[in-house]
Structures are given as structure tokens and as C-alpha cells.
């Protein structure tokens, strides 16, 4: 298989195409991704925007090796995404995941730490560290069935970080959270950003993206419609009260132009 020797790119997508069968007739397909290419640089917080059905989750699944691309290839730190070793450097938070409710937060995070390759005392140390970072230190020994949605999302963040990945892939990390929960998640991401972690997250929460992202890509109907540093994309947009409003205007215009 191909290998890429990239020193700056953590994630590299090369002309990704993904087609799904459409109906029972052979040959009829629905193209969910159409030649999507971009890279995520080390230490960057990359916002992946798009309306529902744009192909964001499909892209994430190809990056993580859950789906095969019909054409093109995804790379993680230069390795093909389907290479199991590539996933040693990645932490993933799905939009919705059901965690084993009978486990405590500590047990669940420890399980994923062991699956991530940690052993012995390191499991305990990292589990405690990420639970504290996620603000769950006091609730770590309560079964997950007694945790609120916001707390479970933070457990999700903790499991994504526990094996010390170089890159976090977050799918709608603030989805379904109340304002307090969103704020807590945003604070965690900002803290990780300060520590130099590469973060790739898909969202349609524009205020979140505006608050934490360096670079943004907009996907619509499987095609990349805009890509660049947030400051550059919003450069010509004046007259808005906040940058979040400017981003919303940019996002809506980009989608309308595409339509």
C-alpha cells in the first residue's frame, strides 16, 4: 500500500470518493463524497462544517477505516487509514455512542485505555488524568447509567484522549448538550489545543467552530466547497456584530452558491 512521508500533515485526504449502492439495481449508486482532498496540519484545530447529509461522518469513517473509499485514499500520519497501526495515534469521539451503562466512568475509560495499548499502572494513571481533565473526577466511580448526557459526552472525550493520541477526531462533540455542557466541552478542547494537540472536528455548531478553529472546510453534498484559515475566509466580511455571525453568513453563502 501507499505510504506518505509527511512531516506536517496528520490527516491527509487524497481525492476521496465514496459511493453507496442506490436501490437494488446493480450499477446505480449514490455519490456521498466526490473527490474530497485536504490536509490537517500538526497542532491545528480543524473545523469540518456542512449541513446534515453533507458527507462529514462518511469522511470521518473513512479516515478511521470503518468505511472503504470507492476511490482515493486517506492517510493518518502518512500511513493509509486502514492500516491498524495508523489508529495508534488517533482518539475518536463519535456523535452518539452507547457506553456500557453497567460500567463506571473509570472502568469504561480503563477498558478503552487497555485497548489503546496501555498497560499496568499506566492505565490507572492515564485514566485518572483524563477523567480529571474532563471534570469527572468526583463522578468517576458512579455507573454510567446515572450520568447525564453531558457527563457521558465528557466520558467520551476522556476515552478518546486516554491513550495519548496525537490527533483527536470529534464528530459533533457538542451535539445535544445544554449550554453548560457545550461550554465544558469547548473548554476541554481549548485546553487540548493549548497543549498542541491536533483536533479535527465536524460540527454544524458555528459558534463552536468560530471559537476554537484555526482552519475550516465546508462540505456540501459530498463536495468540498470552501477550505482555508478561518481568518482568511472571513477577511472580507465586515459589518457583523460577532465573528460567529460572519461565519454563519459565510457558511450560508457557501451553501447557497453550491446549490
Amino acid at each position: 500500500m501507499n505510504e506518505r512521508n509527511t512531516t506536517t500533515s496528520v490527516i491527509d485526504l487524497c481525492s476521496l470518493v465514496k459511493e453507496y449502492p442506490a436501490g437494488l439495481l446493480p450499477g446505480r449508486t449514490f455519490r456521498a463524497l466526490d473527490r474530497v482532498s485536504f490536509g490537517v496540519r500538526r497542532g491545528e484545530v480543524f473545523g469540518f462544517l456542512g449541513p446534515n447529509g453533507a458527507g462529514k461522518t462518511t469522511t470521518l469513517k473513512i479516515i478511521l477505516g470503518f468505511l472503504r473509499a470507492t476511490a482515493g485514499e486517506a492517510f493518518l500520519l502518512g500511513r493509509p487509514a486502514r492500516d491498524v497501526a495508523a489508529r495508534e495515534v488517533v482518539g475518536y469521539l463519535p456523535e452518539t455512542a452507547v457506553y456500557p451503562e453497567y460500567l463506571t466512568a473509570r472502568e469504561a475509560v480503563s477498558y478503552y485505555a487497555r485497548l489503546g495499548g496501555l498497560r499496568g499502572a499506566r492505565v490507572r494513571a492515564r485514566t485518572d488524568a483524563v477523567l480529571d481533565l474532563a471534570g469527572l473526577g468526583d463522578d468517576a466511580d458512579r455507573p454510567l447509567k446515572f450520568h447525564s448526557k453531558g457527563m457521558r459526552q465528557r466520558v467520551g472525550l476522556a476515552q478518546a484522549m486516554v491513550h495519548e493520541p496525537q490527533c483527536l477526531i470529534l464528530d459533533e462533540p457538542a451535539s445535544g448538550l445544554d449550554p453548560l455542557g457545550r461550554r465544558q466541552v469547548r473548554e476541554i478542547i481549548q485546553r487540548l489545543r493549548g497543549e498542541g494537540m491536533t483536533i479535527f472536528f465536524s460540527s454544524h455548531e458555528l459558534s463552536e467552530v468560530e471559537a476554537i478553529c484555526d482552519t475550516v472546510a465546508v462540505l456540501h453534498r459530498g463536495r468540498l466547497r470552501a477550505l482555508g484559515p478561518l481568518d482568511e475566509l472571513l477577511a472580507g466580511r465586515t459589518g457583523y456584530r460577532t465573528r460567529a455571525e460572519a461565519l454563519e453568513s459565510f457558511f450560508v453563502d457557501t451553501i447557497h452558491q453550491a446549490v
Partner: protein
Amino acid sequence: MNSMRTIGLIAYDTVRRARRRRHLPVLLVVALAVAGGVSYITFFGSKQYEQFYFQLMMLVLPLMSVLAAVLSSAWVLPQEIADRALHLVLARPVRRWEVIAGTYLGALAAGLGMFAVLTVIFLTAFSWRGIAFPPALAHAVVLLGVQVALFTALAQFLSLLTTPPMAAIVCILYYFLGQLVQPTLSPMLGAAGTASRPVVWALYVSLPHLNYFNLTTPVVHSWPAVPFAAVVPAVLYGAGWAALFVLLAMIRFERCEL
């Protein structure tokens, strides 16, 4: 990462999940009710009672164990895929075949655990009524354990091709029909013409012969024990089929889009 360690972690998690499913306690209560209820039957003579008890045990024990195995196995992967718990596992440096091996071993441990508990219930009832264990019982128990392993693998494989309820239905149907494959097809193989012989032969070799795991007659009639080596071919036969189904599940899962 070490594959054995990954498989062990996934297997342990699968056992934890299986322990929380409701079917195991239900099957346990049914088995307890059957074993306990039969102990109060008094209208048979002593010998008839023993045979009736053995017959019932050889009916209930394999059926309940296979049900436990199938119900433990058929829902594991589809459920984990549906609630995306599997995404959290596969986002780690975990290979897909390790997931199949781990979930199979976990479901097998749950099924065999249930089988062991059911066996102990029946043996306790034997002892309580002062019934001597039939000589072929140990052989029968080993073969039923192999059958549990086979059905755990079959249910896992089918659950990747269809829905869990359909996989379970097919497994239970095959539990009954599989007893007839060898007795039905073997004479047909001898009598088949040149044209039909390949079809009969293909059916004969492509379906597991479950009658190899059925020692009801020697148990019920307390036949003298045979050397343990006599059941080794059946054990290898069952293990081979189980391994084949696990391998097919691995091949299928490798191609699954999650």
C-alpha cells in the same frame, strides 16, 4: 498490540455484556423448574424414572445450552454496531479479526458457563434422588459442549449476514434439522444416480451432522462407557465446523462497512 491481549479484553467485555442480558436468567429458571419439577414425579417405577429423567435431561440440557449460546452470540456484534460501541473499539489499533475472535470467545464463555450451570443443576437433582450417573454422561457432556461452540460460531456468522432474530431462528431450526442430515443423506448418497449424486454429496459435506453430538441413547439406556478416544473424532469434527464459521465471520466482517 499483542493480539491475544486484545482478544482477551474484548472477550471479557462480551461476557460482561452477556451476563446482563435477560435470557440467561430466564433459561436458568426454566431449567430449574424442569429439573426440580421432575424430581417430584412418583408414578414411574425406579428404572423407568431414571430413563425418563435421563431422556428429559438430554432434551432440555442441549436445547437450553444451544439457546443460551445462540442468544448470547447472535446479538453481540449487530448490537455493538448499532449503538456504535464497536466504533470506539475499532478506532483503536484493533484488527477486525480480533473483534470477531474476542466476541466469539466471550459469547462461547457465556454459553459454556450457562451449560455448566445447567449440567450442575441436573447432576444435583440426580444426586438428590439417589440416581447413579450413566456411564456415557461425561462423553455426552463433552459433545454437548462442542455443540455449544459450534452454534455460538454459527449464530455469530449468521448475525453478520442477516438480522439477529433471523440468525437465531435459523440456528434453532438447524438445531432440530441438523440431527437428520446424516441419517437422511447417508442412505441417499448410496442410492443416488450419477446426476443427483454430486448434489446429495454437496449437501452431505456442507451441513454439520449434529447427530454426532447426540449421545441420548447411550445415556438413557446406561450403556457401558466407551474409551474417551471414541468421541475425539466428533470433538474434532465439531471444533472444525466452529472454526470454519468463525473464519467465515472474520472474512465477512473484514468487508463490513460500519
